[in-house]
């Protein structure tokens, strides 16, 4: 089941990837990530929202979890991007192994860094059930990686969960995204996003394929081959200035 949310509101986009391990505790992994993104959306409309600090957006959103009567447990990665139209600058905050790439003229000009404690264990915001606090990885929103950079008209921004980056080789992504640089038709963008998601899905279930995940695993002395079945979320945007 899908346990990520994508939000596109004004010039803000984000993805959150719920950590699946919570299923064995009877916790729906999608609830946490879903709440995180929905709350980001609500906070964006607040008067106190600072569009240059996506980290504080994540931090406040995380704090809201503690204010819910119905407890929301679990953990999730998160990646939030804010495009400031006035100065053509993108402000980003990333925790974990979701991420984004910015493509210009067929090349990646900016990308997020994956944050991992160790292999296959990304940084994550979490709220464990009471009593399990010690056993659970819980990173603070302050540990988010923040980047800001200017963008040009026509740039393509792809925000996605690790289900995409682990399965689709970079060259394939670039070839796909090259086609829509400067594209303003929403339908075409949607189709490309679908394509990427579908690619990721097919490759994930290809057991012979040397996926980026497999390559990385081998670097960590793990004998892996094939794709990595995982939840896939894609948010695609082009910059129009």
């Amino acid at each position: 089941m899908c346990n990520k949310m994508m939000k596109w509101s004004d010039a803000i986009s984000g993805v959150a990837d719920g950590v699946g391990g919570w299923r064995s505790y009877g916790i729906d992994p999608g609830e946490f990530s879903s709440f995180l993104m929905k709350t980001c959306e609500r906070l964006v409309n607040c008067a106190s929202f600072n569009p240059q600090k996506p980290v504080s957006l994540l931090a406040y959103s995380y704090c809201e979890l503690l204010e819910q009567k119905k407890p929301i447990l679990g953990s999730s990665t998160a990646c939030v991007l804010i495009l400031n139209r006035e100065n053509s600058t993108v402000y980003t905050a990333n925790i974990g192994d979701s991420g984004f790439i910015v493509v210009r003229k067929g090349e990646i000009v900016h990308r997020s860094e994956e944050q991992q404690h160790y292999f296959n264990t990304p940084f994550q915001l979490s709220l464990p059930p009471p009593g399990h606090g010690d056993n659970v990885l819980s990173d603070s929103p302050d540990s988010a990686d923040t980047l800001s950079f200017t963008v040009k008209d026509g740039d393509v921004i792809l925000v996605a969960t690790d289900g995409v980056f682990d399965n689709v080789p970079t060259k394939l992504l670039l070839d796909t995204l090259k086609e829509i640089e400067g594209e303003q038709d929403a339908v075409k963008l949607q189709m490309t996003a679908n394509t990427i998601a579908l690619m990721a899905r097919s490759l994930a279930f290809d057991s012979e394929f040397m996926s980026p995940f497999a390559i990385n695993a081998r670097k960590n002395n793990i004998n892996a081959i094939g794709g990595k079945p995982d939840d896939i979320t894609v948010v695609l945007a082009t910059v129009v200035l």
Partner: protein
Amino acid sequence: MISETDTSVTSSEDLTTEEAALEIQDSHPAPEEVILINQYAQKVIDFSSQYGSDTSISYTAYNITGRPSKFPDYGDFPETFAMRTYGRWWDIAPSAMEELQPTNFHDIPIHDFIVVEFEEFVIPEAIAVYETYNPGAIVKIWAYFSTISTWKCLWYSFPDPYVEKRPRIFSPPLKKVALPTKIIRLEFNHIFLDYFTEIDGMVLTGRKCDVGEICDAAAMRKSKKGPILRKLESVQFKLRQIENHKDILKDFLANDLGNFMKEVGLVHEDEKEDNTPPQITLKDLPCEILFKILSYLDLVSIFRTAQVCKKLYDVATDPFLYQEINLKPYWHAVCDEMLTTLTKRATLLKKLDISWCGLFHSITPSVFREFVRCCCKNLTHLRMNSCKFINAFCMEVVGSVCVNLRELCLRNYSKSPSVLNFHCLKNLRFLERLDLFRTQIDSDLLLMTLRYNPGLKHLNLGICNSTVSMDDVAVHIARYNRSIVSIDMWKSHFLSSVGLLSLSQCHDLEEVDFGWCLREEASPGDSLRILLKGCPKLKKVFLAAIRGINDRDLENITEFCPNLEQLDLMGVLGITYDMCYKILSNCRKLKMLDLSFCDQIDEIQTALWRDVFRVSIKRNFVPPDHPFIT
């Protein structure tokens, strides 16, 4: 319902639509060119209570602004505005406070309010409030008309005990006022609420108008002269005073008034029978009796009585009648003139409630300070909740003059911590009640106040700022304030088992509210047991959202709390059917039990328990598709 017109209906988000010019005709309804606009609330100006913390957007006043997010869903949603209290439960708790000067409350008592601002001035036609949980608490609607600087009540009604538990758009018929407004105040009475009421948004519908034109019209009306003044002008009437006019007047009143009245026919010529007893009027009664009679009146009536005649003026302005004053029900009318009048009369003042007064600069700090200097030396009870006019100088004068305070309520001063300078508190030594709900206070100052006031019985630090550690507070209380009766730490910070252990030494405790505290701990464990054992008088124990509490902890309630009347276990996930049953069986005096969001209990059980044990068991609303919570 909101009236629909044939022209544009816009929200405050997109008010750039073209609108035809509107002709303002004073009292005649405008013909075809009337344009009604609908607006969502843009900003919250003031409110008396909210469920969530100030930095949160869950269950807070902020949610009344903008488009409704959940309506027409029904339920307990964090995207709505909820207040801290409901029903009568806080009125029967050990920390309950009586209203001062209860004679002032012959009208509908108001528990809470919220003031919202809209973007555009309109002449109000309708107001619609989207209620998404337990509707029916709104009892008054006011609007502020800035052109005349006055609040007017557009609608009021006694609270309805039989409102159906369904989502509704509440839109009562409003009084017609042909003046522009963009500020609306809703007032609430919780008395019949079964659980929290929640509001998702509101819409103000009105005729758009040109504020400038209204201002000019109002100014013109003020300067217009009436027929008498015009006549006097035309005959060039000049007032002339003859000498000794005072003596001549006195002489007339004493000697000739009776004859004059007879001649004019104001007095009957009929002779009465001689065997009827001579008539005694109000004026003939001794002052003590008159004081007793007038003490049953509300403040407004006392003021009016003073205008009747000289004798009643002397009685009605005597400081004896002004020892206990409650200005809260007159929040809309309290102004500098009234305070100045009170300054002359209330020199024996002992108890004052000036809460909610002074919005939009109707009270000047200097007038208030003069009032305090003249009248408040002997003040023992002071309630100044949500007073917008209070500044550092006001607090300073309160601190230096009112040194005998036994009760001080300073709720809702969250915006300006150091600016307000609560250092006046350091002079107080006799405090028995201190209410700082939603007020920012310096930690050292608070701890010092605890040290200096050993008689403290009631302390409210709900939604206290995060710089104050409740563990520190608890340790201080255990050392300096052993006679404490009630503590409210709702949504405060840094309470742990250390704090609970300290409080176990306060054996007179009857009420504790630890809602949303103890976040850092898995389970309070032994500290809770020791606290409950050490405080057998506990009547009210609130443990909302302390997720770490399990059956083992609750076992202690059954063992050590025979006097328990109110228990809040909202969101305590670990509680089971068996433990609930045990609590209900052992705590024979229990009146209220909140089991909302306790997922292991289901509706059928609670319905049965309500009848068997006669306890009001609260549960969150569950939509009919999911009848059983697993």
